């Protein structure tokens, strides 16, 4: 590891940090220490205190107790933004890019010119931006508008901006949450090359595999406390999950099991044939039988998400048919898809899934309002009863059916989305990235729910690029650039599937269906 000045102290050293918000203890005697040039992971379940630590390390909040040092020096006074920024950079979970402005202006926001009254020289600004982007090897045009960038390009711009203040320590708060596998790979390449330049990272992620891929040291927080700090190499995945959950984890053996199922015969429950949508996918066919969970794997540009949305009626394909339980479905119409028995879990629960300020009950019954009372009325008592059943069935942790859904944790919010998809008692459940942004334990129970749906004689389609999601499937269809490139039975290896999703040579030991993209 490149370490330019080993005599220096850690780039950041926090000790005995406590923070309370009213009655809630957000951090209790927490500590962390990051050495120069180190890539340090911070993991913990939702509510473990990671976000609070980030806001304390970046000077947005003052700790109640404890000491904070950067490079061995006392932390700057609160409010001295420039001093903080020269010591620690942060790429937040929420984008801090302003969409309507150019990349160059975003990079130098509020410092476009030397003095407040000095007019901005746009030419000079573009020059400075080009230099900065080149310095960190970011391949983005400074004149492009930020809203036209891809998620990963935006992140590179944010990283370049954060580092341009002179900090050699950067906090990345779930940077991979919105990236596909390819984008993550490029992000990691970038981070590794920055690391070689002596930049240290604090990397926060729900995705444990990434911790192993990128980081050398890992710190685990649980219930607002520091649990363990250890070199990644000395802590295997099971021990890490154990430290996060505080209980001995079941490791790689989840509650559900896929092996030993016989492939059902008879007419398929879902039959998609010859589906094409311009710019997304071509001539796609798929069948799913009762009791089967089918995975639809693919990176962001593969068209798998669009395909899932098409089956749910959000897009109208140019060609092809969708048949559910032997009856053709009118494409491009959500009500038709619902009526035909297709339940849908959208990709992003915040954007497409939930109405955050409304109650759990209302959110869960949004698709079945017609069944909640006579003559188009919606009776509160029936809504409540319906929601209570859902809460029981799916084990949703909520203070009650009338609690606003925004008060729930990410995993439980996602369960509400699934509850709604199941409310219509569909034949087919289409779930796009069902475990997006939820913690390890919720992940398992969400996937268990999907498995149960299939076991109850329905069929489920999981659209995802997360290997953990796809493990629950009986078979996985891999897509690349809008085409099916491979199909795997349960028991595939990670390498095979990733290779197929990345458009690399198809697997040899499973049946190959289409290799025309070569």
């Amino acid at each position, binding site marked *: 590891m490149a370490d330019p000045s080993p005599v220096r102290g850690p780039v950041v050293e926090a000790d005995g940090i406590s923070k309370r918000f009213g009655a809630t203890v957000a951090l209790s005697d927490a500590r962390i220490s990051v050495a120069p040039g180190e890539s340090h992971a911070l993991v913990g379940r939702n509510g473990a205190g990671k976000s609070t630590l980030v806001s304390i390390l970046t000077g947005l909040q003052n700790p109640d107790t404890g000491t904070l040092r950067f490079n061995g020096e006392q932390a700057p006074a609160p409010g001295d*933004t*420039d001093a903080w920024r020269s010591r620690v950079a942060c790429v*937040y979970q*929420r*984008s*801090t*890019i*302003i*969409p*309507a*402005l150019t990349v160059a*202006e975003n990079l130098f*926001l*509020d*410092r*476009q*010119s030397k003095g*407040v*009254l000095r*007019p*901005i020289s746009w030419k000079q600004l573009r020059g400075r931006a080009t230099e900065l982007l080149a310095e960190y090897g970011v*391949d*983005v*045009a400074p*004149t*492009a*508008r930020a809203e*036209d*960038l*891809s*998620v990963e*390009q935006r992140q590179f711009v944010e990283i370049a901006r954060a580092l341009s203040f002179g900090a050699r320590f950067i906090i990345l708060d779930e940077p991979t949450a*919105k*990236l*596909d596998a390819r984008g993550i790979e490029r992000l990691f390449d970038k981070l590794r090359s920055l690391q070689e330049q002596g930049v240290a990272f604090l990397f926060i992620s729900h995705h444990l595999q990434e911790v192993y891929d990128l980081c050398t040291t890992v710190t685990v927080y649980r219930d607002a406390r520091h649990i363990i700090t250890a070199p990644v190499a000395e802590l295997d995945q099971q021990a890490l999950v154990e430290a996060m959950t505080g209980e001995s984890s079941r490791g790689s053996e989840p509650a559900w099991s896929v092996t030993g199922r016989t492939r059902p015969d008879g007419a398929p429950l879902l039959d998609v044939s010859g589906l094409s949508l311009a*710019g*997304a996918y071509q001539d796609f066919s798929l069948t799913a039988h009762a009791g089967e969970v089918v995975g639809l794997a693919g990176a*962001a*540009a593969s*068209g798998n*998400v*669009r395909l899932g*949305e098409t089956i749910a009626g959000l897009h109208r394909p140019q060609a092809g048919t969708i048949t559910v339980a032997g009856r053709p479905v009118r494409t491009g119409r959500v009500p038709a898809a619902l009526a035909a028995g297709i339940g849908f879990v959208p*990709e*992003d629960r915040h*954007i497409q899934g939930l109405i955050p300020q409304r109650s759990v009950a209302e959110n869960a019954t949004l698709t079945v309002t017609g069944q909640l009372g006579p003559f188009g009325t919606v009776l509160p008592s029936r809504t409540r009863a319906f929601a209570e059943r859902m809460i029981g069935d799916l084990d949703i942790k909520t203070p009650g059916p009338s609690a606003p859904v925004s008060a729930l944790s990410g995993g439980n919010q996602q369960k509400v989305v699934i509850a709604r998809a199941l409310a219509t008692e569909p034949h087919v459940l289409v779930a*796009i990235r069902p475990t997006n942004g939820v913690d390890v334990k919720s992940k398992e129970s969400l996937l268990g729910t999907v498995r149960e749906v299939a076991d109850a004689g329905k069929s489920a389609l999981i659209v995802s690029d997360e290997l953990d999601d796809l493990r629950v499937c009986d078979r996985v269809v891999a897509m690349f650039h809008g085409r099916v490139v491979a199909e795997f039975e349960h028991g595939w290896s990670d390498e095979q599937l990733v290779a197929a999703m990345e458009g690399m040579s198809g697997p040899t030991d499973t049946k190959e269906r289409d290799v025309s993209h070569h």
Partner: protein
Amino acid sequence: MSPTTEVRPRAATAGTAPAGRRFDLARYRDLSLVPVLLVLGVIGFAVSPAFLTSDNLLGVGQQATELSLLVLAEALILIVGRMDLSLESTIGVAPVIAVWLVLPDHGARFNGLGLLPSWTAIPLCLAVGALIGAINGFLILKLRLNGFIVTLGALTLLRGLQVAISQGQSIVTLPGSFTYLGSTSWLGVPAAIWICALLFLAGGCALAWLRHGRALYAIGGNSEAARAAGIRVDRITWIVLILGSLLAAFAGVLYTGHYGSISADQGNGWIFQVFAATVIGGVSLNGGRGTLFGALTGVLTLQLVVNVMTLAGVPPLWNQFLNGAIIIVALIISRFASGEKQE
């Protein structure tokens, strides 16, 4: 829509071909009404020989000044991501309060308080405007009240205040200093046009080349990001609100001078036109987008349509209908000229 899948195809154009076609279109989005203005000019020329005379055009210009100052104010406020409905009342109430304070307390149809010398009328008027903006800003930014409702309340309240002070009548006896700017001409062109053009130019330059001007776009585009970048979001928003009301009060000075009196319903109902002109000029209601030049073309379009219609002999009773129609047509034009959805 899924963010990841949507963004991908565009990324290629942004990353590798920055000089693409889409980019050029975006750059000229604010000019989308210029062709409309030219077409209106041609129609006007065809309809009546009186259209292309300096008298007519200067008349249209002068009539546009008061509205365009409100549009300037509203454009700034919309860019910073806020709204101010009370501007249309400020244009009336600020002059009334100013002359009420300076007019003698006896001897005329409208009696003031006579507290201050008559030359203070304009500074007083501007001060009243600034005060209104400051109070709106306090309610919106410090007490965190909903800006739309606060300024809706202020609209009604200030209108009522004007009616109460002026006893519902027009004020015709005014200090000479107060009416000078609105009625005089410099170099053969009404002073109001010069001033208005100057203010638009100054505002446009500040938005294009000053850090604080760019901060308006940053705040309107993503206020959290602006805050993270070190921009003092609340302070700048407050200043913009004050500046907006100040401009509205100044528009009141010009309007009063132009017509020689303060009418009781000065500015009444203008806010619809103000919003319409600003939005068809390309300023986003969601903040962070648009230019003052675009907003100016919006006002001119609205004014020219009325002028051309009048010259064409369309009965004035149809004006309101046509105004509404042109707003919707202009919106459609700018929607397709810019290629962006207006949500």
